[in-house]
């Protein structure tokens, strides 16, 4: 056997009360030495079960019911190489335990929970080393220190004694990777290693894994549903669907000649940057509401009524919000507590009938902003104005009591997490009807009719009205969320990462639904997402946020064709596309420093000397830069400066990090 790992006719079954269920039905593939194999599929396709079977970490109800998992183990006792059938070993036996973590290790999806919160990072990484390699505590510490340096921790020595909750998501994932690699395994299984991360950090982690693969000569089994990541990482691709392999082969073949209809469908469902204006995603299962739906009919009249595109519906001026980072003690004054700026002097307007995309990495303040608009948080400063269709102006922040209660019908919110945003003890009928009940529709039959119509609008059968949320899939639950948000017939819908928890095929379905509803009901959206391709697909204009600041705002074509702000550029560069001709430039990532405002180059930087304002570049394109600049900024980018801007920014970073005379970095 030349390959590192070969899986032959693997079958995994789950013991369920109603009998055995086969989740993996005769899967065979190989992982060559030193290569990356991507295992692709929707959730529920059995890809994670395969990885668990290799590690012998299957859930208690699951067992391997057939097949072999042959692994070439280089770390056998006595240093010899031996081929082991992992499927035949005892799951928690000594032999399997020595392979697990020693020769094969695993990186998990969720960096927030995959480390123990009460043990230091150093302790948890050292532990893996101490079990598998015969080293003393002193040596182990040194090796771990080297590994932490290798995965790019800025201060490895300090990291040894920090706890996971003190690190950001990206750093935690680095720690998890360091833990997986510290024994220099021959196979690394990465289960959605970057799904929970921001694009800029995702790009860094992908680069890190590629570099380490080269350095350590290991193979990687990459489990993902993100075809962009696959195109950038994999040598070979295996596509799974319902526990079976649909297609497998070289990454070139797979992307250029997708043979199987499922793979074609999967590729068609991913939003791409090069889509034609008006081109629709093709979901695997499309939603078709009944054309005679009463809600669609009444709303269509309304949407025709005010189709004037230019009038604003929401105007936000100089919004600022700070959070206290630490509670003052009993004898301390409130004002002494250190504060952090969550939203810093943001102004923009939302036009009636448009979809405004709000993009930025986690912690940039986009959710805070949306909560302020919803009046769930109170800003320190600024104003929010809402305009009625007839042009009447209403001050959102000064409303209270009955006026605010009535106004809530105009603006609704759609949440990110389809699981925790629906009360598991309420039926779908109660969930969707609750806003109606709260706002005074006491008649049960009347509510029932509207709920039925709403369910039809989002493509759910009204027959399922009395079911509880747990009997629906993630995508269906998200549609319940949409129906609930639409119940009060709002004008403005704020969608906070509505598709980030969904599979690509379901994502396409929900995105198309949102697009159709916007047209049909004359809605206005504020669409918050960290996924640029998704925002590109659905939004008309895009606002980019970083560290609480709005850095750039432009019509989407303009933004993608001609990004001006260094942060926007870094963000655009970091998105992996499912296209082999358009791979990420992994050497140009600036180690995530693009999101540190103090390190932005000259007219954009935050230095306390210059006042930053939104500068109009024409055609509705605004960028945040120092006062006094004008449309010349556009040229700044179109000239030679721009081509080598990454290098320029790097230079800038180095200059600023050195102790320059008279210069202080805040």
């Amino acid at each position, binding site marked *: 056997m030349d390959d590192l790992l070969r899986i032959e006719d693997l079958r995994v079954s789950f013991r369920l009360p109603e009998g055995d269920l086969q989740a993996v039905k005769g899967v065979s593939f190989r992982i060559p030495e030193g290569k990356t194999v991507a295992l692709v599929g929707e959730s529920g396709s059995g890809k994670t079960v395969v990885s668990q079977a290799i*590690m012998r*970490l299957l859930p208690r109800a699951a067992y391997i019911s057939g097949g072999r998992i042959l692994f070439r183990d280089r770390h056998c006792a006595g240093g010899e190489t031996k081929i082991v059938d992992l499927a035949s070993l005892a799951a*928690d036996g000594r032999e399997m*335990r*020595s*392979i*697990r*973590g*020693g020769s094969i*290790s*695993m990186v*998990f999806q*969720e960096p927030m*929970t*995959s*480390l*123990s*919160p*009460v*043990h230091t990072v150093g302790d948890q990484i050292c*532990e*893996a080393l101490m*079990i*598998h390699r015969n080293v003393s505590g002193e040596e182990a510490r040194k090796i771990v220190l080297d590994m932490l340096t290798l995965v790019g921790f800025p201060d490895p020595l300090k990291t040894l004694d920090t*706890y996971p*909750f*003190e690190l950001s998501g990206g750093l935690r994932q680095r720690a*998890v990777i360091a*833990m997986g690699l510290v024994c220099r395994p021959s196979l690394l299984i990465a289960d959605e290693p970057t799904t929970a991360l921001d694009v800029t950090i995702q790009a860094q982690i992908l680069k890190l894994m590629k570099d380490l693969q080269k350095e350590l000569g290991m193979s990687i089994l990459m489990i993902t549903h993100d075809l962009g990541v696959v195109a950038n990482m994999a040598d070979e691709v295996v596509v799974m669907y319902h526990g079976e392999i649909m297609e497998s082969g070289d990454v070139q073949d797979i992307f250029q000649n997708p043979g199987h209809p499922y793979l074609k469908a999967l590729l068609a469902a991913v939003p791409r940057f090069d889509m034609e204006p008006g081109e629709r995603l093709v979901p695997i299962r499309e939603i078709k509401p009944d054309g005679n739906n009463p809600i669609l009919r009444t709303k269509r009249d309304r949407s025709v009524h005010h189709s004037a595109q230019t009038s604003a519906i929401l105007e936000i001026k100089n919004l600022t919000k700070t*959070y*206290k*980072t*630490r*509670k003052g*003690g*009993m*004898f301390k004054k409130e004002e002494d507590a250190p504060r952090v700026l969550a939203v810093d002097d943001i102004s923009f307007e939302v036009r009636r009938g448009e979809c405004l995309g709000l993009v930025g990495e986690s912690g940039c303040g986009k959710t805070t902003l949306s909560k302020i608009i919803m009046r769930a948080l109170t800003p320190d400063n600024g104003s929010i104005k809402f305009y009625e269709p007839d042009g009447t102006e209403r001050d959102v922040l000064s409303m209270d009591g009955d006026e605010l209660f009535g106004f809530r019908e105009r603006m609704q919110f759609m949440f990110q997490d389809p699981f925790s945003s629906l009360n598991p003890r309420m039926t779908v009928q109660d969930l969707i009807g609750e806003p109606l009940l709260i706002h005074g529709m006491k008649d049960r039959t009347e509510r029932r009719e509207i709920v039925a119509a709403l369910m039809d609008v989002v493509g759910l059968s009204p027959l399922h009205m009395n079911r509880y949320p747990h009997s629906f899939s993630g995508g269906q639950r998200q549609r319940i969320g949409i129906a609930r948000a639409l119940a009060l017939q709002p004008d403005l819908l704020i969608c906070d990462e509505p598709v980030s928890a969904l599979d690509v095929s379901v994502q396409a379905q929900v995105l198309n639904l949102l697009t159709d509803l916007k047209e049909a009901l004359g809605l206005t959206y504020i669409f918050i997402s960290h996924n640029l391709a998704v925002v590109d697909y659905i939004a008309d204009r895009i606002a980019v946020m970083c560290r609480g600041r709005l850095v750039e705002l432009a019509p989407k074509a303009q933004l993608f064709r001609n990004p001006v702000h260094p942060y926007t550029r870094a963000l655009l560069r970091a998105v992996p596309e499912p296209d082999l001709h358009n791979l990420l430039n992994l050497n140009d990532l600036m180690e995530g420093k693009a999101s540190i405002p103090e390190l932005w180059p000259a007219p954009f930087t935050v230095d306390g000397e210059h006042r930053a304002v939104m500068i109009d570049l024409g055609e509705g394109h605004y960028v945040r830069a120092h006062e006094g600049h004008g449309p010349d900024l556009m040229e700044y980018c179109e000239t030679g400066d721009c081509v080598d801007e990454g290098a320029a920014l790097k230079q800038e970073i180095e200059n600023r990090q050195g102790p320059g005379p008279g210069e202080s970095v805040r």
Partner: protein
Amino acid sequence: MLNYIINRILTMIPTLLAISIIIFTIIQLPPGDFLETQIAEMQAQGENVDLEKIEYLRKEYGLDQPPYLQYLGWIAGFVQGDLGYSFEHELPVTEVIGDRMLLTLVVAFASTIFTYVVAFPIGIYSAVKQYSVGDYIVSVVGFIGLATPNFMLALILLYSANVWFGTSIGGLMDPQYVGEPWSWSKVGSVLEHLWIPVVVIGTSGTAGMIRRLRANLLDELSKQYVVTARAKGLSPIRILIKYPLRLAINPFIADLGSILPSLFSGAVLVSFVMGLETNGPMLVKALQSQDMFLAGSFLMFEAGLVVLGVFLSDLMLAAVDPRIRLGGGASK
């Protein structure tokens, strides 16, 4: 951290003052006082009342003064270590309580340790082997333990011990040792009697603790970091002890706030049934007869122990859990 501790200690003072006012008010709520109750009782029995002595006591303890002065006098004495005078026992409160304290603590410590020693292994076993035969048996026994009234178990055990081992019924020692100075045979007699209350008081806590530990541990066992630990190749036992167990004991440390006061007053009902010479029954009697200084002292001690226990458990939680130690106070 030091700031935090000082802050916490300073906030204890107003808390305890508030509690003392509430305690004093409640004791004063029923009409009359101890002396009046006693006079009435003696007259009803046709006995002569030594009015001079009564009058002397009333003056001495300020019962003729308005309540707020009585309160101030009581609390001022309390701070200086003078807990007042027990009318019923005709002794200073310190002496009355002191006698019983040792036995109370012995019973309480023994039963707490019994609870932990029994509950922890069983709880861990039934969580790790969830839905196994062993888990079901333990759960059923646990539920029976929860559902059986303590005093009934006490009576059954007392009877059995008397029939099988000839242990005398009631009390914590054979009658001939009561009031005698401590000797080895007295200690032996105490030990012979001790196990019944320990088992009775212990089992009630044990069943509850098994259920809680099982639930906590099951939560932790399904967490992602446990899978991570398994993926490292750790042996199941080491994983269990190092990761989930470490996190599952947090609630038990937090419990300290309620354990300390229960050490002090003990299980009242069981003590009554078994005639144990502990604090619990005495507190009840003191409340019945409006023996205000004795009752007040008991209640203040308990309140103090609650406050102290919560404080200690907070400190211990901070020591054990870095999330509390380092993340404290940050708000989103």
